């Protein structure tokens, strides 16, 4: 029959078991809450910055370019009292309230800078009191990040930095009893339960603590068991942590919008993203706008739905006033304010994904991928926003223009651009394709394409390094040329214009990019020797020691080509291309510098000669059309490249300050029917013209002398020769023989010159 004692025993066991299970579950949740909440640091993306603009008297930059960069950095127009991050212009003067910024070498406090411009350059830099400033470093543009999972981005803030009105508005609107409840709000739960019973699903009723738990630990599904777990965890959170800790974490966690593929989290980043200022400077109205967005950042997006956002903000303001947090006066003032948002072009994870890709790859050599995505490292790069945007704009426009004249259909032409500083090897701009915002195939780094004539300077450099045999005027035979080697078909290079030109001076063979002459020269010197030169110029890729390699049957990426030309542009000093200057921790502790390094790979004399020959390419050779963009005084040195069936169009060249490489072609290797001069050069020319480059002026090495040469005979000329050219020669290598046009008097003149020279030498001992 019914055994009372047995029943009670079972009941006791059951109750005990349930209690134990409940205790176990609670303990489990407790451990999770504590370990995760305490152990949890927000994963912070590595933040990538462009080079800071350093203003000083004499810097060549127009006011409009400085203003553009300030706007990009979220600086607003017009003064704001006590709140940096704005600029104001008055004719030639530009006043900037520079925000504080932690640089690699320390914190630069907020400061007021006044800059005067004149004729496209900075005339003066002053502080607010009108005292001259030698140098004013502006805050660098943020150009993206390397993000954690889901591309969450945030800027952490302390609760003490958050303006009081924001906290009050948040509490008034999201969780009125926040400071008195224990993690849950009975009234809220009652409301939620009521709506659940009426089969309207689970909704609302969450305290800030519950919302935090939900975002932090749980999946977004809406089930009863999840709701219960959430409640348990919220209570546990409240037991272990005080209100301020919970509030601070909430303010940093909350999702507040989307910038393309980047998720905006926390009020710190949201302030910068929507208003271009740090959170402590937000007004009541601005704070209310952000608080209003908590409910639905997309629905109340102030950029896309300004009316809805305004209505929501005013609702938040009224609630805040009704709860007695703000006075009627403050309320009316805030209500009357406009949204105040500062719309910039959408940036996503980066506006310049190709450059960021290069930075990321260089970082990966020294850092763990996981650290890059979570430690909040700050990376200072070499990107020059003005150069980058010029390169993007010109490439996009030119490719569209070329496409219109073509009948090849989709997909259209592609292109890549690399621009570096000739002296430091810093990469100033990098474009990986015509869709410049696209994070995908990065042609500047990964498209290895035949380089064609771009290798020719290496052949001529090898020759000119041997002045006993080769000078700029040495005749080279551009007659039909056949190269026989065992086991390979005969190699018979032809010229671009399908004709042969007989004996041509070495410099003209390069200027006109004659293939037969170049092949003959290269094979005379020896392919191995030329390959050694290419290696010394900075190309690491293995190359086949075939004669055809000489004419560019070699695949290189635009970045590799840039490295090779960099060595020429910096006078024979090999400088590894760099995209990063410095890396610091999140709070500004220096981690690593990527120092400027140079290595003398060639003596100065042959470099001077090859550069002169490459200036000839522009002055009188295949790149003559560059004069449509740049004046002869720019003295650009360059080389065009066109490959078989015109599949690839290249131009590589440098001014005094910029080296640029342009590639254009089809991804699927179709014949583009565009030459280096016809397609790549116009892109290069238009870009450089927009950058107002410095002319190329080489320092003349000791071992170089200039000699007058009669171009028709290639012999020594003098004042009597009407079209004589002054050409550089390695000391003692110039032709001794006098040209027919030279005057008989010339002999005597030479004698006087020599005498005068030796007299000077005796006097000054040099």
């Amino acid at each position, binding site marked *: 029959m019914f055994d009372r004692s047995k029943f009670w025993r079972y009941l006791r066991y059951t109750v005990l078991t349930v209690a134990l299970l409940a205790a176990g579950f609670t303990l489990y949740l407790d451990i999770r809450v504590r370990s995760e909440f305490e152990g949890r640091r927000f994963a912070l993306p590595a933040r990538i910055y462009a080079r800071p603009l*350093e203003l*000083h*008297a*004499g*810097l060549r930059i127009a006011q409009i370019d400085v203003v553009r960069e300030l706007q990009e950095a979220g600086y607003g127009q017009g003064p704001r009292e006590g709140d940096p991050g704005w600029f104001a212009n008055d004719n030639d003067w530009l006043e900037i309230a520079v925000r504080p910024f932690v640089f*690699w*070498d320390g914190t630069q406090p907020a400061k007021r800078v006044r800059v005067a411009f004149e004729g496209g350059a900075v005339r003066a830099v002053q502080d607010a009191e009108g005292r*001259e400033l*030698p*140098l004013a470093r502006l805050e660098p543009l943020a150009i993206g990040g390397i993000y954690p999972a889901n591309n969450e981005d945030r800027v952490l803030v302390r609760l003490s930095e958050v303006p009081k009105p924001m906290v009050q508005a948040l509490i008034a609107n999201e969780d009125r009893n926040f400071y008195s409840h224990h993690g849950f709000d009975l009234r809220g739960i009652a409301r939620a339960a009521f709506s659940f019973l009426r089969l309207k699903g689970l909704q609302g009723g969450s305290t800030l603590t519950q919302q935090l738990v939900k975002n932090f630990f749980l999946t977004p599904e809406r089930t009863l068991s999840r709701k219960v777990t959430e409640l348990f965890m919220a209570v546990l959170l409240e037991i272990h942590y005080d209100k301020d800790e919970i509030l601070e974490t909430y303010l940093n966690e909350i999702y507040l919008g989307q910038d393309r593929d980047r998720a905006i989290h926390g009020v710190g980043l949201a302030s910068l993203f929507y208003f271009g200022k740090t959170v402590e400077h937000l007004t009541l109205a601005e704070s209310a706008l952000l608080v209003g967005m908590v409910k639905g950042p997309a629905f109340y997006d102030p950029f896309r739905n300004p009316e809805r956002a305004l209505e929501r903000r005013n609702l938040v303001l009224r609630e805040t006033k009704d709860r007695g947090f703000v006075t009627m006066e403050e309320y009316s003032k805030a209500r009357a304010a406009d949204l105040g948002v500062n719309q910039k072009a959408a940036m996503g994870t980066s506006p310049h994904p190709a450059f960021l890709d290069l930075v990321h790859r260089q970082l990966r050599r020294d850092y763990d991928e996981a650290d890059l995505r979570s430690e909040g490292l700050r990376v200072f790069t070499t990107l020059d926003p003005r150069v980058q945007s010029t390169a993007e704009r010109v490439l996009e426009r030119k490719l569209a223009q070329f496409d219109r004249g073509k009948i090849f259909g989709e997909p259209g032409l592609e292109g890549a651009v690399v621009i570096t*500083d*000739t*002296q*430091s090897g810093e990469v100033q701009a990098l474009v990986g394709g015509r869709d410049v915002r696209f994070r995908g195939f990065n042609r500047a780094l990964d498209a290895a394409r035949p380089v064609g004539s771009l290798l020719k300077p290496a052949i001529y450099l090898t020759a000119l390094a041997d002045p006993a045999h080769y000078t700029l005027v040495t005749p080279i035979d551009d007659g039909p040329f056949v190269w026989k080697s065992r086991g390979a078909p005969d190699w018979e290079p032809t010229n671009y214009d399908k004709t042969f030109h007989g004996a041509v001076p070495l410099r003209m063979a390069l200027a006109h990019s004659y293939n037969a002459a170049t092949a003959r020269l290269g094979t005379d010197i020896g392919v191995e020797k030329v390959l050694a030169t290419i290696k010394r110029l900075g190309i690491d890729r293995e190359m086949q020691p075939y004669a055809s390699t000489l004419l560019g049957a070699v695949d290189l990426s635009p970045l590799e080509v840039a490295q090779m030309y960099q060595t020429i542009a910096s*006078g024979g*000093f090999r400088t590894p291309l760099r995209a990063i*200057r*410095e890396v610091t921790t999140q709070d500004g502790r*220096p981690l690593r*510098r990527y*120092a*400027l*390094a*140079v*290595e*003398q790979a060639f003596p*100065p004399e042959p470099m001077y000669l090859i550069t002169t020959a490459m200036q000839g390419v522009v002055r009188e050779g295949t790149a003559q059309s560059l004069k449509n963009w740049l004046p002869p005084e720019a003295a650009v040195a360059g080389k065009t490249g066109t490959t078989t069936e015109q599949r690839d169009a290249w131009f590589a060249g440098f001014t005094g*300050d910029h080296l640029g490489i342009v590639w254009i072609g089809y991804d699927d290797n179709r014949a583009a029917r565009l030459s280096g001069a016809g397609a790549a050069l116009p892109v290069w020319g238009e870009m450089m013209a927009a950058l107002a480059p410095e002319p190329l002026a080489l*320092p003349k*090495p000791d071992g170089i002398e*200039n000699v*007058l040469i009669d171009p028709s005979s290639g012999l020594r000329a*003098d*004042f009597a020769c009407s079209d004589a050219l*002054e050409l550089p020669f390695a000391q003692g290598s110039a032709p001794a023989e006098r040209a027919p046009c030279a005057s008989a008097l010339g002999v005597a*003149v030479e004698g*006087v*010159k020599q005498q*005068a*020279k030796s007299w*000077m030498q005796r*006097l*000054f*001992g*040099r």
Partner: protein
Amino acid sequence: MRTLLALLAAAAAGCATVVRPPGPFPEPAPLPEPAARTENLAIAGLLDGARADAAAGRLANAAASLERALRIEPRNPRLWQELARLRLKQGDYAQAESTAARSNSWAGSDNALRAENWRLIAHAREARGDAEGARAALDAAERQR
């Protein structure tokens, strides 16, 4: 001494004008300029900062300042020389030597500067145990006078 040289140079220039034949003629090289007094205040400021940092042992900061200065005036051989001197201090002898060579490439007719660069190169080679190379560099320094 300097005045005397200047007078001699003026005299030489005068003579050259008299005997100058038509056609190109080698210009007399200008006298070495007095030691660095840069016009650019930005450079001067960065240089001072770099020297102070170097003296205090903050070598990386000093290098960063010098590189900032070089971005403003990449053709200033004195900045390259200062960087070479710093590389020597940092114990990076290969960079010290090539950076001094870079300074030489922009030195023009400044023989005093060149001589100093060659002395830096000699130091760097010495430190690397290349006694012969160091001697050759010192000889080169002597030849700049």
